[in-house]
């Protein structure tokens, strides 16, 4: 059974981070191994299951992490990492819109995954549909949903990542769920 991630309560691996700052490649690899799943999973769900974009974001986040290393230790390391991941996802969305919006005129959009009714009973296909709907939500609804249900963070932890109140998180989750329920209502009996 897979365990959901939690914001790390331990001291934020100060030694490991210090080693990374010194350019120790093995320490970088260890830090990457420990946290890659968090970053990749957030990005993968943020971009509706687009593995290429999720890989790009993961690469960017860790490169920023290793080359700038501006984590100051005044927050939990994982909180800081989640924040950086979310910001990179949002920046990436803006960049793609700015640079490649014109390509949409020539119908070279991403392939749309169409799932037949018979297949929808299978969880994986449902997950694809859920990811597609999730991708259509505004970031302010999408991100709390991912942090809560993919990463298993508490309201307090999400509020820290997004730098807002727990009440805001609760209401954004509420709104996000209602949109999801409305758009995916036809799958009501299948999960």
């Amino acid at each position: 059974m897979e365990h959901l991630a939690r914001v790390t309560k331990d001291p934020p691996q100060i030694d490991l981070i210090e080693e990374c700052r010194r350019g120790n490649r093995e320490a970088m690899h260890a830090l990457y191994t420990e946290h890659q799943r968090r970053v990749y999973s957030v990005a993968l769900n943020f971009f509706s299951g687009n593995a290429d974009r999720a890989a790009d974001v993961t690469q960017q986040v860790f490169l920023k992490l290793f080359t700038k290393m501006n984590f100051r230790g005044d927050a939990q390391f994982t909180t800081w990492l989640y924040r950086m991941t979310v910001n990179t996802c949002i920046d990436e969305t803006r960049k793609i819109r700015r640079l490649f919006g014109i390509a949409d005129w020539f119908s070279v959009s991403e392939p749309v995954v169409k799932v037949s009714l018979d297949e929808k009973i299978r969880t994986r296909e449902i997950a694809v549909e859920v990811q597609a709907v999730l991708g259509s939500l505004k970031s302010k609804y999408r991100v709390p949903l991912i942090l809560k249900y993919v990463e298993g963070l508490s309201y307090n932890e999400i509020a820290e990542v997004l730098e807002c109140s727990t009440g805001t998180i609760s209401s954004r989750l509420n709104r996000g769920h209602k949109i999801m329920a409305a758009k995916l209502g036809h799958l009501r009996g299948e999960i």
Partner: protein
Amino acid sequence: MYQGHYKNEIQAFIDQELGKDERRAVGEHLMVCDECRREHDDLKLGVSFASILPRTDAPDAVWARIDSALDPASPQMGLIPQASFFNLRRGLAFGVAVIAVSVLSVVVYVNLFSGNSPYTAQGPNQNSTTPGQQPPLAVNPQAPAHNANLRVNSNVNANTNSSNTDKGLPPSSGKSWQVETLAGMPKIGDGTASARIAVGELLETDAKSKAKITVANIGSVEVAPNSRVKLVETGKDEHRLALERGSLHAKIFAPPRLFVVDTPSGKAVDLGCEYTLDVDRFGNSVLNVTGGFVAMEDRGRESIVPAGMKVMTRKGKGLGTPFSPDTNAEFRRALERFDFGGGGRAAVQTLISKAEFYDMVTLWHLLSRVSPADRAAVFDKLAAFVPPPTGITRDGISKQNDKTMLQNWRNEVEKMWFE
């Protein structure tokens, strides 16, 4: 008693974020209020959908890309991510669109201002090429069939002087495999575009190129960006590649041990499988098996890795123990110390105390790797997850290290793993 609704609290109620008293109050209210219950049901449905979103590891190639970009000599240094296939596709579309618009503009200009009707442009001198000269981008209709598989860089063959590419032959020995370009311009051998790789030749991809090698008649290997692969041997007894750096994904359908990939710190021996193999700039490797089994070997030591597990090798430090990517972080760290950090007994104690059900294959490997003093404890832990079949005893394994018993238990462990 509170007579209003609890709509603002229902989300937190579902997510178990309320205190005990508040939770009880909302629960009691839901039993009597249809309106709030409908709200609850809607939100609960949304939660059910969100709860099936996947949580997965990044592909191993991502670390290889990061590692390569951190290299000061790398052109990627400076936080420029490698172009993804998606971006590449969009970029190409944009390029094609710009060219199309430019061509259209020229045609319109010529038609409007040159005074020549398109219907008069049929004379023998209309073609701007001189006699004997090939028109640009002319594709030779006689090109061999396998060249048609070259996708993105097919124009390279068309533009190249046809002496090599039209023949489509390997440079030297008759032993060669077909190569298909998936993106960019992979280099083979001396750098000329080719549709085959011969024994002794290197296939090299840069940050934007990918290639697919057909492995004789037993499967295929996709070579990821920033990789360097050599065809070492191909014959009826063995097909062998060497991955010097980068990443490859192999799909093989063949008898066990027919296909081998060497890395600087070990070799991956196919036992009927599908897997991804990454090698970093230091020669360390990570094998991630997605179908069947692979044996990773180094200097007489062997790790049998079933689908769903990984194993690492470190150059100069040897071969690691297979592990499940879903294992807990403490177990993973202890295994790293045990395999490569000289962790000794302390690491073994952590491994035993933190092992979970899906660590069964790791525990089985540890039986023959830990010191005799720790073997009984590993036996007990593994037995709690996979009871040893008849004939396998604690003493037989912990004291005598009986190979037949180990093998028989391995069969049970693998059965359980795949169940």
